[in-house]
């Protein structure tokens, strides 16, 4: 890949080939094998690593399989058992709760931040850097710090104590555990959404604002009638990603909720799949849980896309 021969240099080859063959666009004879050559790795990947496995997961979900003995066909038994499994239902509830809270709150905060950061002021580059730092750091390391922040003698409890509020157990408290993890995730997820909103804001033509100013529209009015409507495509886009990302929450939960035995309070769908498949080697059960998760995300995404016409303004 590194050292290529000079023979193929198109500029040098120019003089050798007087024959002016085809030019312009459109399919050309003999291109088929080139297409195949360029696409081969991606095609194999699509078939063997994504599309195929999605179907395979469904097949496996119809079996009972510990990977040691031969798989046993059990029909929809795994699905029926999952719907009666308290741990799975708890994981489902937790994941939905996580999504329903973290997505709207996270996006609203990000939108506000982006509006504030979208300013031509000195030093903005430095401030932006500070905001974006959590983005590049692993959720594992971040979760460790937050574990410390939430610890009994940690900063958060110190602040509470200083204010005369009793210390809380946060991630160790069944009711506060999930909100604590959500708060951390919102904090970490903020920068990515802010960057997308900033890009959206900068794509709004300045002429719109100028025209609105001439018409006497104030700051509030410009925000409501120009900025927000024109930002809806970005909002829609980040919404999809946040929704799908929220359903996949795992790292934070794994680290924060005492690895090995996260209490029921914080178990999520992906944690459940991980536990069933790769700790207990119930492949069929894990496969069925994956398919239920897949269906929920698919339905949620489709419903979300359906709402598009009602509130997204494409310019």
């Amino acid at each position, binding site marked *: 890949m590194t050292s290529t021969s000079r023979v193929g240099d198109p500029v040098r080859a120019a003089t050798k080939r007087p024959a002016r*063959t085809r030019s312009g666009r459109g399919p050309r004879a003999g291109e088929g094998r080139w297409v195949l050559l360029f696409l081969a790795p991606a095609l194999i990947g699509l078939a063997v690593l994504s599309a195929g496995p999605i179907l395979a997961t469904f097949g*496996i979900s119809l079996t009972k399989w510990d990977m040691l003995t031969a798989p046993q066909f059990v029909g929809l038994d795994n699905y029926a058992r999952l719907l009666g499994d308290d741990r799975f239902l708890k994981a489902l509830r937790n994941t939905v709760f996580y999504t329903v809270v973290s997505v709207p709150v996270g996006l609203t905060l990000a939108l506000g931040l982006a509006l504030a950061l979208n300013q031509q002021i000195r030093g903005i580059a430095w401030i932006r850097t500070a905001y974006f730092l959590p983005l*590049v750091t692993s959720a594992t*390391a971040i979760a*460790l710090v937050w574990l410390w922040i939430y610890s009994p003698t940690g900063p958060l409890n110190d602040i509470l104590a200083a204010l005369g509020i009793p210390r809380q157990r946060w991630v160790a408290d069944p009711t506060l555990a999930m909100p604590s993890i959500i708060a951390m995730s919102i904090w970490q997820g903020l920068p*990515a959404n802010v960057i997308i909103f900033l890009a959206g804001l900068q794509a709004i033509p300045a002429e719109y604002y100028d025209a609105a100013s001439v018409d006497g529209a104030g700051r509030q009015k410009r925000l409501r009638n120009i900025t927000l409507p024109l930002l809806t495509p970005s909002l829609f886009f980040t919404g999809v990603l946040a929704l799908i990302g929220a359903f*996949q929450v*795992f790292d934070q939960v*794994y680290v924060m909720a005492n690895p090995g035995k996260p209490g029921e309070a914080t178990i999520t769908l992906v944690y459940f799949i991980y536990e069933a498949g790769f700790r207990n080697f119930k492949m069929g059960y894990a496969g069925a849980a994956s398919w239920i998760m897949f269906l929920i995300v698919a339905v949620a995404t489709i419903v979300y896309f359906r709402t598009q016409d009602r509130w997204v303004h494409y310019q």
Partner: protein
Amino acid sequence: MTVRSVKLGVGGHAPPRSARKIARRTGLYLALVAGGLAMMIPFFWMLTTSLKTRAEVFSTAPLSFPTGLHWENYAKMWFALPGVTFGTFFQNSIVIASLATLGQLITCSMAAYAFAVFEFRGKRVLFALILATLIIPFQIVLVPNFILYRYLPFPLSESGNWIGTNLPLWVWAFFGGAFGTFLLRQFFLTIPSELADAARVDGANPWQIFRKVYVPLAMPALATLAIFQFMWSWNDLLDPLIYLRDLPTYTTTVGLAFFQGQFVGKWPEMMAGALVSLLPMVILFLVAQKYFVRGITLSGLKG
């Protein structure tokens, strides 16, 4: 911006307006700096806690500065686990992330080139199919992929298959990927086809056009993809957790999570470990900020 302020100035009451503007600007600065601090404080705590003694962590206020700089916490963290150092985890992470990045750069750019320059039957459907994998939660393929790797032979491993080796963590990258293909295709589409036409007239074949015209011109997009894939691989926890079995094969994330399970309450060492593990990514971010911003804008990033 300038046009607007000139027009506003015509109104006649310029002084109060600019005074209000200054006040508003000051308030904005304060809010932005406060927000910036809120984003930075966890990192600050990570640093101060990593430099305290364990006794200090519990006896003094967490918000305080350490009394002395206990760098030995870093040494303790580095050598805390039996038989391996944190350096081993670093090395493993670097190998995996580099190979995954290399694979994505090669195969995504190839696929992107095919989608950008060729016309062929089923092109739209295929591209849509690849894009669709972007919005499918990848956990759906965890089980079959695990089974696949379980049956792929690898004589050098203890299990005789790919489980327990780092192969499942980077070999996939040599088989394309939705994010990279999309990102690079968008970029390739902006390259004028006249360049390719000229090269073709000169007798270059599609591979030569790809290597000599498209790849060199797409360096900024390739850099974006490289940085993102490296970061994703570096920060990934679930896959290494599933496939890696022995301590010496762990990546920094798994090492850190394992560390946390083993050393409950040893906050200074744990914070030192967390800080060291994220240092490479922070440096990469500071060096290549603009590529990060471009990549996120295009893709969204996970989470």
